[in-house]
């Protein structure tokens, strides 16, 4: 097992529980995927397999939905996920400088996970906080009006 992946029996068990909670019907597929992603940090292949069994729909259709939405991941990610808003409003309001500083401090590029598994760096489209850009999202915490010199303080909060 590599660092960060979820054991297959646990993935199946969580998938089973979540399907039962929501009711195993097709229109619950995206809420089910979102819930599992929240609990496990990503969607392991075994979980997708279990959803396919529970909902009685082809695996291809489960993967097709799972791979479409940006808040869902089919790959393991770091303990903390940083999302930087790359849309035009943040870009114009100083986002470009924040993005360069963020990549520099983490020594990561977009989509990469740090070797110690602490961080995954991603870009995101507009988060709807544009009067207070630049905006970054760390896990569930949103940071507004971010400047490059605030980054080290923000990052230090997450171990």
């Amino acid at each position, binding site marked *: 097992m590599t660092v960060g992946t979820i054991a297959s029996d646990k993935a199946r068990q969580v998938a089973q529980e979540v399907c039962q909670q929501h009711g195993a019907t097709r229109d*619950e*597929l*995206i809420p089910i995927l979102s819930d599992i992603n929240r609990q496990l940090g990503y969607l392991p292949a075994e979980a997708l397999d279990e959803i396919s069994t529970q909902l009685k729909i082809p695996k291809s259709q489960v993967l097709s939905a799972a791979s479409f*939405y940006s*808040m*869902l991941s089919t790959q393991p990610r770091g303990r903390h996920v940083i999302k930087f808003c790359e849309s*035009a*409003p943040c870009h114009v309001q100083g986002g470009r400088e924040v993005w360069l500083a963020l990549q520099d401090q983490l020594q990561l590029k977009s989509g990469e996970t740090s070797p110690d598994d602490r961080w995954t760096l991603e870009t*995101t489209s507009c988060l709807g906080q*544009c009067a207070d850009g630049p905006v970054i999202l760390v896990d569930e915490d949103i940071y507004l009006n971010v400047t490059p010199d605030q980054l080290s303080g923000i990052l230090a909060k997450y171990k």
Partner: protein
Amino acid sequence: MIAEQRIVTERLGIIDPQKIEDYIDHHGYEALRKVLTGMSPADVVDVIERSGLRGRGGAGFPTGIKWKYVSKTPGDQKYVICNADESEPGTFKDRLVLEGDPHTIVEAMIIAGYAVGASVGYIYIRGEYGLSQKRFSHAIRQARQNGYLGEHILKSDFNFEIHVHSGAGAYICGEETALIESIEGKRGEPRTRPPYPTTNGLWNMPTLVNNVETLANVTAIIRNGAEWYHAIGTPSSAGTKVFTIFGKVNSRGFFEVPMGISLRQAIDTFGKGMASGSTFKLAQTGGSSGSLVPPDLLDIPMDFDSFKAGVVMGSGALLICDQNTCVVDLARVLLNFFRVESCGKCNPCRIGNMRAQTILNGIAQGIGTMKDLENLEMIGRYLYEMSNCGLGQTAGSPLRDILTHFRPEVEAHIISKDCLAGVCAMSGQPALV
């Protein structure tokens, strides 16, 4: 001096959004009572149609006509969907309403259900709007406890239920048929229209899809009448519009005014002028799919028809840029957005946006050619003419706008390898990848 007139945002900051009593004290559920005690469904549709209300998601389709289509389509089960997948960059008006006055949307959805003959409603709230989802779910529970939602609403024969559906991160799900696909548990890929959702919507049944801001006008229209509403705004676009303003201005935030305000008035009055050291260069209006507006269009009154003069009102987002914004760099950011958010279903959009971004990257690196400009124009035209949905059809707007309004600045990148704003990598600074 332009003054605010608040209809959509009238209760924001005034009521406690978590208390239904506060909402009721401020005319809450009065419109629903009026509808259920003295109006037929056809009366309600008629009032909305005569009010001149147009869809606030950006396209401006007449709301009353949509309601009439759904009401006249036979169907054993019809649906009302509130589109709260607000993802247009720069737009957060719907979030403010859902967070600050959720009951107005609950009430409007029930009224819409009564008008079109639907007993089930869905609200599709984007996954990133956690607080909106929480506030709205709370409002639904309170409405149910107080007899406004569920069976025999206000002791009438009308039943209505609302379900909250969370998005999972996809701009395209703001397109109504992609949104419907997503509720059905699929990838958010737009369907081919026609047929429209008014006849073949959720689970192939007649479905009314309205934006949050559109619905936020409904209760006031029912209470105050169609004539009152129609007298506000411009002849083609009745009512008010919520704008969001940010960028290089002194004051950033939202404001609601009658339709017809110009960009200059918006910047001076609500942006409190350009920021110190900033000179107006362009505004990006209506979100990424809107328009890039040069200084000579600052006085065009903005409404649903002002796109004909080159100023798209769209969702009401106003991004104000100064001399430090490079048009090539900005277009690169905008096309990157469309490349990332394209669902990939149709070729012109999937390939066109990627090609356009690659070409713009080249120009920003100082390796562009004049032939590139012809290709950008061609890609923009193909996107508009051949894409399946609104995302692809509008994705070429930034290309068209920079080449129409800022051609010399773009050409300088190619001919003299010069980025006037000093932003592009050729000027010695790294560029956003």
